């Protein structure tokens, strides 16, 4: 197996990975950086983010407001030291992107423009039309091209972390076009591999969002934190699951049921605000968890609209007018038109909640360090405990930047402390990866089909770990996912070629997703309360006595994972009531 020697390996070249790479290259130009990704950087799913990125910039706003919005939005499961760091770094990072050429929308005087977003008390969401993630990703990627110390390994599929003496010393990966394995030896590894939303059948996530980075760290012994918190975005297209950005509502779009009623007022987010005059933190500008839950209740009451794509509610943007829609929501306009045949200028568009984002991930502290020395993580794959039990829209694009950079700085500090290592001492670990892959190729008794197992996993997650959960369903989910993990050991590789074998990649991705799915279900079963995006019909209240704690899931080989807890860091905001009603009832 060929060896690549480098200083820092970054796994994943989306927003967080690219930001980390640039921070490393700028801060320590002599370091060798290997940026590994299973896709070309521009394909990373950061590109699909639409609405924008939050950072305090306008005179009427304050860090305090952003702090409290984030902590309350996360139902007090955020670590407040982390939030504190984040809100102060956010505007700097967004300005940095501005200096790098990001085409942010502007005010007439040339300053950056901001828009309202769900759960935010002030307008602080920077945006580039409704392609903010796309522009952030391309700005970062293009900027990264000027640094000679960044060596990209595009379309290398990360496989296993190389551990030695308890430290992370590199990674094994497969060059996808040749099928050849490489071992990357490094002093530190930063995982920035994204979330695992594809474990659900109906998701805004791209096909690549299979949690490979999360599972890699998990297999190497890193605990996963708060995995049970899965965010449903309230407004997805009912057929493809494509995201219609929260900016639809930020700009003034309203949600109605089949009676034409703006039903959010019936779920503590009223009173009704005038159409076209959105009021911050009220009605349609409530947080995503509340809005998705309101849909579920409307469904139970029979108030949803039956369409050929299933039960929906309506997102009405007609009153915004053609000019504003074309200027600020061109992608939404195009998506609804082409995939659903609805012109949002003329008609309300049917929508329903769709799995969007994982608050949980590899457990990291505010320095983006995992408990494993030498392993850092940032972005959706990490749980730095910024988002708590529910992420506010437009915080995650900034999270990529703030903690991508932070992971790089932490890695640089860590490098000083790493003892030298004889390269051959990682060979045995690397060979384990080789054997794992060869076993797939040589197995002739494979009976389980990849697509069959994947379908069962997705159906289980949708049925048992959806917007509302209960003990029996979750227990069934845990049992089923555990069974699928066992059956996965007999999965059949149909395609035996070595060259760009997507059958193989999908099998590897399924393995990652099953690991993540088990952590989600086990964590959800153990959390007997309702908080943020984790809602239980059998434990309807938040329980701060027992569960103001982070769920930590530890992998135990083929057995069920072990769960323990970590206290939430509370500095200045004791748990309180989440108030999204306009009249503060």
């Amino acid at each position, binding site marked *: 197996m060929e060896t690549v020697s480098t200083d820092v390996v970054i796994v994943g070249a989306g927003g967080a990975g690219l930001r980390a790479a640039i921070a490393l290259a700028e801060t320590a130009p002599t370091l060798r950086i290997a940026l590994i990704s299973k896709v070309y950087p521009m394909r990373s799913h950061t590109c699909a983010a639409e609405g924008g990125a939050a950072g305090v910039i306008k005179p009427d706003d304050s860090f305090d407001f952003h702090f409290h919005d984030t902590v309350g939005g996360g139902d007090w499961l955020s670590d407040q030291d982390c939030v504190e760091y984040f809100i102060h770094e956010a505007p700097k990072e967004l300005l940095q992107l501005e200096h790098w050429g990001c085409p942010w929308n502007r005010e007439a005087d040339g300053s950056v423009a901001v828009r309202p977003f769900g759960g935010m008390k002030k307008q602080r969401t920077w945006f580039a039309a409704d392609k903010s993630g796309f522009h952030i990703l391309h700005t970062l990627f293009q900027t990264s091209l000027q640094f000679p110390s960044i060596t990209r390994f595009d379309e290398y599929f990360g496989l296993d972390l190389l551990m030695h003496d308890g430290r992370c010393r590199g990674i094994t990966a497969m060059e996808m*076009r*040749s*099928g*050849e394995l490489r071992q990357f030896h490094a002093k530190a590894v930063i995982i920035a591999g994204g979330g695992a939303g594809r474990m659900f059948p109906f998701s805004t996530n791209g096909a690549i969002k299979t949690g490979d980075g999360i599972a890699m760290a998990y297999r190497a012994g890193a605990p996963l934190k708060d995995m049970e918190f899965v965010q449903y975005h309230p407004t997805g297209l009912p057929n493809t699951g494509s995201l219609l950005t929260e900016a639809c509502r930020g700009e003034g779009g309203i949600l109605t049921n089949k009676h034409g009623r703006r039903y959010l007022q019936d779920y503590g987010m009223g009173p009704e605000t005038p159409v076209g005059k959105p009021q911050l933190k009220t009605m349609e500008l409530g947080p995503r968890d509340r809005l998705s839950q309101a849909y579920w209740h409307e469904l139970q009451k029979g108030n949803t609209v039956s369409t050929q794509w299933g039960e929906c509610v309506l997102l009405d943007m007609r009153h915004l007018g053609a000019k504003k829609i074309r200027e600020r929501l061109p992608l939404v306009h195009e998506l609804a038109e082409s995939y659903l045949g609805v012109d949002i200028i003329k008609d309300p568009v049917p929508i329903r909640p769709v799995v969007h984002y994982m608050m949980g991930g590899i457990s990291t502290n505010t320095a983006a360090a995992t408990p494993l020395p030498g392993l850092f993580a940032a972005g959706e794959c990490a749980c730095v405990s910024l988002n708590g039990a529910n992420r506010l829209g437009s915080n995650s694009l900034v999270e990529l930047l703030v903690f991508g950079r932070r992971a790089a700085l932490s890695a640089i500090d860590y490098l000083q402390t790493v003892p030298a290592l004889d390269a051959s001492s990682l060979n045995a670990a690397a060979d384990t990866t080789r054997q794992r892959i060869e076993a797939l190729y040589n197995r002739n008794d494979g009976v389980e089909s990849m697509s069959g197992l994947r379908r069962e996993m997705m159906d289980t997650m949708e049925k048992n770990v959806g917007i509302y959960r209960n003990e029996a369903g979750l227990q069934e989910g845990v049992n089923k996912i555990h069974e699928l993990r066992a059956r996965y050991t007999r999965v059949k590789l149909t395609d035996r*070629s*070595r*060259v760009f074998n997507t059958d193989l990649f999908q099998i590897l991705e399924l393995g990652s997703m099953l690991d993540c799915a088990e952590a989600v279900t086990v964590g959800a079963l153990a959390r007997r309360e309702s908080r943020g995006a984790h809602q239980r019909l059998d434990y309807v209240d938040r329980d701060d006595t027992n569960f103001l704690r982070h769920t930590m899931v530890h992998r135990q080989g083929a057995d069920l994972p072990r769960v323990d807890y970590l206290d939430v860091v509370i500095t200045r905001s004791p748990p309180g009531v989440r108030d999204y009603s306009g009249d503060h009832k």
Partner: protein
Amino acid sequence: MSRRPLIREVPPASWFFRHPRYLRYMAREVTSVFVGAYCVLLVIAMQRLAAGPIAWQEFLVALRSPVSIIFHLLAMAAAFYHAGTWFNATQKAMPLQIGENFVPGSYISGAHYLVWAVLSLVVLFFAGVF
């Protein structure tokens, strides 16, 4: 086994049959031959004029031959087509921004057609057509 990328050669002499838009492009390029040929004709005309009145009269007679008339018709059609593609291109090459908005491309191309028509009328006027 390992990689062995497949290179698909582009046929150098027949590529433009692969797609109608390539044929349209070739048609545009071919029309420039007629435009060029007409320029050569104008040079010859100058040379005949310089050679004296007899040479010039012979040249004018030759212009009235059927071959010449067919050539002129073809060249004029080609010139129209070529000029059209050129004018249509102006909106791409010379976008005009006023404030935040761009002047619609049809205005820019349209202005070129307009100037073309006016200039043609002026030429025809001096040629004594009216």
